[in-house]
């Protein structure tokens, strides 16, 4: 069981009459990296929120390392050792970078240890120059990076990232890719993304969502060339 | 209250007051009269004329040469209809201003908020308002009518004009609660039956459901010891529902703050009341008083029951100081306990030594065209309710408000 980091069975989410996620079965092995793609409204984000506990699914179950976490609160899931990043940057804007990361570190370490850990992450993410600045004043890319730091500082074994590369410049995307590779040494990752270049550079297996269901799940190259996928998703883009 | 505490308090008071700055310079040649009244807020209709009456009395005393060769100086605080401010200003009057006497308090709640402070600091206190009776405390003198003086007279008259079943609507605080019990007692004594009692917090102003409820019970008479501006709505809504001609109303408070002048004649006419004073009293003393009031304030329409009580209270105190020839609290109390009498606008007022309450005239009246028509005058009634439970001559250390038990 320990080999499976995340599994959902028949995960379904309805809003009134709308079925945003429809009986999704999903499985992620330890240290696997998986990208979720799909057109807008395909149910990626809903699926994502159901896993992170921001929403609780109408039906179905979620298991993390074999523990059922269906309907848990986000903080309970996070406490298992799961790192999460939401779609829009979600940080403490009027606190400094250091304070932000320290707060994340403090959850899993005592005060002194948290200081250590914070410094490690700041070095890892090359945030030293801006460590004292309030987050509200930083550029979008820097904020994304800090948020990744918040996720990483807890040494998670499962990381859920919603659009980590959105709005980043080419150089920043590259840095992001490197960071993700480092994280992937310890943890399994689920990444919701649109940027195909980025996906190719990090992932092997891709899961495609369409109308709330898993349309296909395969190697990135085969998915890209799949005519059905092209039809529902890529076709429109290219 | 142990002796221990009192001596401690008075010595501590001396220490405390020495460090309180800035303070008004102590004028050795004047007497300080503390006044504490709601001259703003929802009880200002009671308090403002009381304040005017107090100032009128002090002016008259000063014009006549003052007391013991000294002028009387007024130290007044407006408590803004907030009970918490009573304790605050009460402390200020006694500990900071160190007044010689305090007149004031309107609602029974306000009296109880400051009574113990007055007692502790040994400041003579006059409460000049009609109330529910039963306060037994050597430091306080009360000249308002009590239920035995008022309710006992009003109830049989009102029942005689209506019938035996009575519904009571009372303000929800100590005055209303205790007065309602007195009404129940006198209704029973007169062979009637109390068919309902409802209490209303002072901020209630919607009586629609109550009026409907009263009709389901169908009493012969409604007696309403309601208090304050919000409760005035009851009389208005009662009339608006067309109930006025169906069930007669009596009240122990209506008109005390000149409420009958705010209501239209259609709303007010016929409500039965009983008080010590009415502007319509046609006596030389009252006519002269109204003239003096008009001379000071332009017109006399604001005078009401408890304004006159306040005037009579100040005058009673002044007479006692004259007779005692001293401001010493014990000497003044002794003078008052001789059964001292004054002639006020509402007739003779005599201090009852046993209870520190007053013996006075009570008039049964009906509201008529925004005035009070006197039906019957009951001279020199004793506060027998309080006399039954309180004897300060025998028991000078008593410090209780006795309540009627049913």
């Amino acid at each position, binding site marked *: 069981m320990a080999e499976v980091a995340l599994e959902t069975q028949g995960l379904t989410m309805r809003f*009134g009459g709308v079925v945003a996620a429809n009986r999704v079965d999903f499985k992620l092995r330890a240290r696997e990296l998986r990208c979720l793609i799909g057109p807008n409204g395909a149910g990626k984000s809903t699926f994502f929120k159901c896993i992170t506990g921001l929403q609780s699914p109408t039906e179905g179950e979620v298991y993390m390392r074999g523990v059922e976490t269906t309907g848990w609160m986000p903080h309970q899931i996070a406490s298992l050792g799961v790192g999460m990043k939401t779609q829009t940057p979600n940080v403490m804007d009027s606190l400094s970078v250091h304070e932000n990361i320290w707060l994340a570190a403090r959850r899993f370490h005592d005060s002194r240890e948290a200081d250590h850990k914070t410094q490690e992450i700041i070095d890892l993410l090359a945030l030293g120059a801006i460590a004292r600045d309030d987050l509200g004043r930083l550029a979008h890319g820097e904020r994304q990076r800090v948020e990744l730091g918040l996720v990483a500082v807890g040494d998670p074994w499962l990381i859920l990232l919603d659009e980590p590369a959105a709005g980043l410049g080419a150089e920043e995307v590259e840095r992001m890719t490197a960071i993700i590779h480092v994280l992937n040494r310890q943890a399994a990752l689920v990444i919701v993304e649109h940027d195909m270049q980025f996906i190719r550079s990090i992932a092997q297996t891709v899961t495609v969502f369409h109308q709330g269901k898993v349309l296909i799940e395969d190697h990135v190259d085969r998915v890209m060339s799949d005519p059905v996928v092209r039809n529902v998703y890529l076709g429109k883009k290219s | 209250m142990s002796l221990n505490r009192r001596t401690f308090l008075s010595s501590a008071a001396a220490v405390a007051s020495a460090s309180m700055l800035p303070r008004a310079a102590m004028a050795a040649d004047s007497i300080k009269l503390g006044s504490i009244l709601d001259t*703003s*807020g*929802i009880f*200002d*209709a009671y308090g*403002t004329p009381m304040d005017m009456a107090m100032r009128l009395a002090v002016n008259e005393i000063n014009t006549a040469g003052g007391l013991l060769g000294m002028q009387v100086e007024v130290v007044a605080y407006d408590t803004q209809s907030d009970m918490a401010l009573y304790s605050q200003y009460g402390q200020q009057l006694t500990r900071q201003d160190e007044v010689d006497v305090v007149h004031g308090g309107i609602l029974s709640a306000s009296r109880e908020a400051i009574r113990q402070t007055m007692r502790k600091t040994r400041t003579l206190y006059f409460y000049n308002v009609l109330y529910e009776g039963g306060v037994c405390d050597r430091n306080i003198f009360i000249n308002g009518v009590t239920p035995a003086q008022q309710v006992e007279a009003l109830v049989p008259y009102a029942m005689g004009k209506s019938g035996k079943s009575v519904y009571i609507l009372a303000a*929800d605080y100590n005055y209303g609660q205790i007065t309602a019990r007195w009404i129940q007692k006198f209704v029973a004594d007169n062979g009637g039956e109390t068919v309902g009692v*409802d*209490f*209303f*917090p002072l*901020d*209630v*102003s*919607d*009586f*629609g*459901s*109550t*009026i*409907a*409820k009263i*009709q*389901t019970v169908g009493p012969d008479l409604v007696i309403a010891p309601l208090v304050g*501006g*919000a409760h*005035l*709505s009851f009389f*208005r*809504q009662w*009339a*608006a*529902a*067309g*109930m006025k001609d*169906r069930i007669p109303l009596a009240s122990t408070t209506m008109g005390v703050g000149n409420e009958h002048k*705010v209501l*239209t004649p*259609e*709303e007010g006419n016929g409500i039965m009341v009983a008080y010590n004073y009415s502007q319509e009293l046609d006596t030389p003393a009252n006519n002269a008083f109204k003239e003096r009031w008009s001379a000071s304030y332009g017109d006399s329409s604001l005078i009401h029951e408890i304004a006159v009580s306040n005037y009579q209270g100040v005058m009673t105190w002044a007479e006692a100081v004259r007779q005692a020839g001293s401001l010493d609290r014990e000497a003044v109390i002794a003078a008052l306990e001789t059964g001292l009498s004054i002639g006020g606008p509402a007739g003779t007022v005599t201090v009852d030594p046993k209870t520190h309450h007053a013996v006075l005239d009570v008039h049964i009246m009906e509201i008529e065209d925004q005035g009070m028509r006197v039906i019957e005058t009951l001279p020199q009634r004793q506060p027998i309710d309080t006399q039954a439970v309180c004897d300060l001559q025998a028991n000078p250390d008593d410090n209780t408000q006795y309540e009627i038990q049913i």
Partner: protein
Amino acid sequence: MDLYVVVLVEMLYGVASLILISAGLAIVFGMIKVINLAHGEFMMMGGYATITAVNLGVNVFVAMLLIAPVVVGLIGLVVERLVIRHLYGRLIDTMLATWGLSLFFIGLATMVFGNTTTGISTPIPGFAIGDYQVNGYNFFIIVVSALLLVAMLAVLKGTRAGLVARGTMQRPDMAAALGYSPDRVYMATFFCGSALSGLAGAILAPLVGLVPTSGGAYIAKAFITVIAGGPSLVAGLFASAGFFGAVNQIFTFAISPVIGEVALLVAAVVLLRILPQGVTGTFFKGRL
């Protein structure tokens, strides 16, 4: 039997008066997301405007239905221009500023009108339902509230102005792009909301004694009704006023007016705990 009719009338009256005292607040909150805590004082000023006009010899209905709303609406306009417009989008700040305004107006009214209770008589006589006398004015309030709801619905749904207002409320940027100044729309909305507050104060004036602090009695109830109603303006107002009005009157009749008020408040706590988005945030989503 007659009693049931009387209770029903009182219940309708309870609901109607809640609608009346909440309408102004609901418009301002629902349309421009401003919680006007000076709403109670706007009502109080509506009451004073009516009484002053009546004392000057104006017909009481003209004073209530015309003069008071216009006067208070204009006061609202001044308030919007001087204070509120600097604070759009800052919900908590508008609450604090309008709280300050409420104190300011209490002080102002005290200085102008004094602190003594004033009032006017009800202009409609009472009448009988079977063996019971009821206050005829209650029916007037019920009718006015019903008309008010219908009018609100009609204006919002049926007129161009309503359409523009609704559009602006959802997407101010789009409305601006289409040539409607959001600033103007907000201003007009605040005017309407204030005028409704004034109307409510005017209509309730004959029932109760008026003092400068009278507004405080209404604001809490109105606030609770509007918040519990949730995002849909008219439906929310109707649903929560109906619920709270009924609870209030049932407990008032069964026990006492105080228990009625407490029951209303307890119901509000329970309701918000169960439906944290208000009634219409849960049930009538997306309707007006």
